[in-house]
């Protein structure tokens, strides 16, 4: 068997140009397949990591996102008193009443406009989001027109530099700090004092109330309490669920796009593989006859040719994944239509995606090789030896 295996390998080496062309066709398909999976994964990872499991977001019922929500001051203070909330410094409940609005800013590259989230934060906002830390400068003082910008905003938008100021809502806001929130959605936000922002935007209502649960299992009780209170028209969600819901539409779009593309593309690559393998069988008819005459069984011949084709697929898969892995250095910034705001996320490669891509490459190799291999193994010794 080892002999036949090397026979196959040597054959790929002999027909180098063909091998390279076929494998690179497959590599491109694997590349596309992997990159789109990585994109969808990166998007979901960003939004899932954005939330903490023990945090609860309270927004107006059926508004879907903070941007559309409105929670008036009375309702917000009722939520503030839920007994399930953990307590923070000085024994006060760990609750943050926040404002979320969108402003239009120009991108650094191309100058096109995009919607950026401005979040009005309360004292507890930082405590509730330990993943956010100030990377440069300092946090804004309460009651001042100071803002803190996320890493992705600093990178992507014009005028967003430490020490400069941004003009919106008829006021000039000084950028006093840049915060790093890892690969979470907060990196694409601007934070400022909630009361100042509410005043400037003339928005008398909060957008959401966020609190941390005293104990994780208290969620259902807190949810029932908030949603059945006749004074409130609000709904409560775990922060993780809230962000996951927001990524659903786009992730689904990316997946549909990705799968339909790869299926179509793989037809091309499988055809390429089939052409190669058929030619390789046709060219070696005599050799196959000789092998059979020497006593190699049909199944062995079948296995040898299939191995050759699978190896082609493996080469393609490896090359495709190799190049796809470089995509991890790129960040994509686009509008999430569910929130209508800009979100930066990167390609993310994990073992599962690598495995899927490799399985896909091998499947392509198999699909391209099975028919030619069957033909090779089905040959009669006499006919094969007599040919050409």
């Amino acid at each position, binding site marked *: 068997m080892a002999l036949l295996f090397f026979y196959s390998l040597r054959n790929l080496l002999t*027909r180098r*140009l*063909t091998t390279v*062309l*076929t494998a*690179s*066709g497959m590599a*491109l*398909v694997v*590349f*596309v397949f992997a990159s789109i999976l990585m*994109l969808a994964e990166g998007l979901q990872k960003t939004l899932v990591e954005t939330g903490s499991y023990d945090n609860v977001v309270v927004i*107006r*019922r*059926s*508004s*879907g996102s903070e*941007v*559309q929500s409105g929670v008036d001051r009375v309702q917000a203070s009722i939520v503030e008193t839920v007994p399930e909330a953990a307590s923070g410094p000085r024994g006060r409940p760990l609750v943050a009443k926040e404002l979320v*609005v*969108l*402003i*239009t800013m120009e991108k650094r590259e*191309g100058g*096109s*406009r*995009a*919607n950026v989230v401005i979040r009005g934060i309360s004292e507890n906002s930082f405590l509730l989001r330990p993943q956010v830390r100030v990377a440069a400068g300092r946090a804004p003082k309460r009651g001042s027109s100071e803002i803190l910008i996320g890493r992705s905003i600093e990178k992507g938008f014009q005028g967003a530099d430490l020490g400069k100021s941004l003009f*919106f*809502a*008829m006021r000039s806001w000084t950028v006093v700090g840049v915060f790093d929130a890892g690969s979470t959605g907060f990196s694409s936000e601007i934070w400022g004092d909630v009361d100042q922002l509410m005043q400037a*935007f*003339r928005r*008398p*209502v909060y957008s959401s109330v966020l609190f941390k649960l005293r104990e994780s299992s208290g969620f259902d009780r807190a949810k029932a309490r908030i949603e059945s209170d006749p004074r409130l*028209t609000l709904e409560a969600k775990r922060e993780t669920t809230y962000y996951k819901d927001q990524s659903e539409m786009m992730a689904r779009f990316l997946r549909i*796009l990705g799968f339909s*593309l790869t299926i*179509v*593309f793989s*037809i*091309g*690559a499988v*055809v*390429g593989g*089939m*052409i*190669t393998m*058929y*030619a390789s069988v046709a*060219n*070696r008819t*005599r050799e196959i006859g000789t092998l059979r005459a020497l006593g190699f069984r049909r199944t062995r011949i079948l296995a040898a040719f299939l191995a050759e084709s699978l190896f082609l697929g493996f080469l393609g898969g490896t090359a495709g994944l190799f190049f796809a892995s470089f995509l991890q250095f790129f960040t*994509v*910034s*686009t*509008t999430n*239509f569910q929130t*209508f705001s*800009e979100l930066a996320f990167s390609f993310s490669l994990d073992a599962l995606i690598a495995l899927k891509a490799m399985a896909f490459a091998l499947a392509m190799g198999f699909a391209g090789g099975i028919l030619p291999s069957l033909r090779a193994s089905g040959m009669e010794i006499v006919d094969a030896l007599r040919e050409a």
Partner: protein
Amino acid sequence: MLLKLVFRNVLRHKLRTGLTLCGIGVAVLSFGLLRTVISAWYAGVEASSANRLITRNSISLVFPLPLSYLERIRGVEGVKTVSYGNWFGGIYIEEKNFFANLAVEPRTYLELYSEFLLPEDQKQIFLRDRRACMVGRKLAKRFNWKIGDLITLRGTIFPGNWEFVLRGIYSGRDNRVDESQFFFHWDYLNESLKKRQSVMADQVGIYILSVANPERAAETAERVDRIFRNSYAETLTETEKAFQLGFVALTEAILLVIQLVSFVVIVIIMAVAANSMSMSVRERLGEYAVFKTLGFGGPYLAATILGESLLLAAVGGTGGILLSFPAAKTFLHYLGDYFPVFSVTPQTVLFQGLATLAVGVAAAVLPTWRAVRVPIIQALGRVG
């Protein structure tokens, strides 16, 4: 002689030729579909008119403008008609039944958007009934709505359940018009808001204005913005085209990915076609040596190989282009909810043709080089 040789060579390996053709066809087809997706993205831009301007709050679209601006905008020199509306963002039963729904001032809106064709009798009733709504032909078909039906939307921006009576079904003047929108009376929204949530009442999302002279649109836009400068709701006025392009720009990154991928498919098929050509050439190296011995020069050999490659590409490509039209129709049937306009444009066909040509040429390059360069002795002495 040359042509005959090319045809004979193409038909020598029927299976290989068939597979290659099928590969090229699929690639050109998918290239065409991807290009069509991109042009569908720009459908809103294509459908916009040069003499319409959009005025919105300069902070961002989520901030409204006061209704009191109406008269002041109407008074601006060069402005003909002014309409206004709000993005309602209502959900019909479930979130996945997404469609655009807007509250508009109906009389002026229909005047501005003369490409929405509504039968006269339906129009009269629609204008008179404050709870009336008007939907596009495609949308009505999607949910099987009939004139007189009661439709309930759940508000996301404006809370509560909102009931409408279907009074009109419009169709587009040409196939660029989006026939999957839902319009209702702005007054209905506003009156209800006054009762339920008075802070949100008398607020307008966007003003739509028509200008008498499209060449002076920029000037008119500037005049409108100047009136409200330094007021608490500053405006940003731009042509409808620029407004729609702004939406496209939001998803630039995705668009770029699709564009890149559409080229990748062409590269894949180049590799496949080049592979099948190089195999053919390898098998025929002996014959080429004979040709050379007989005195045929390099250019002649190159012509046979290039001719064969171009013929393959042309047949496969034509097949792909022809299949694009029924494929786009099927696509529209299933994904019409996401892409209201989806048709193959002449430009797409042109691109497909160019891609086919590129595949034909690229596939012939390496094999030709090889056939022309190989020494006669080596080619004749070669085995299998």
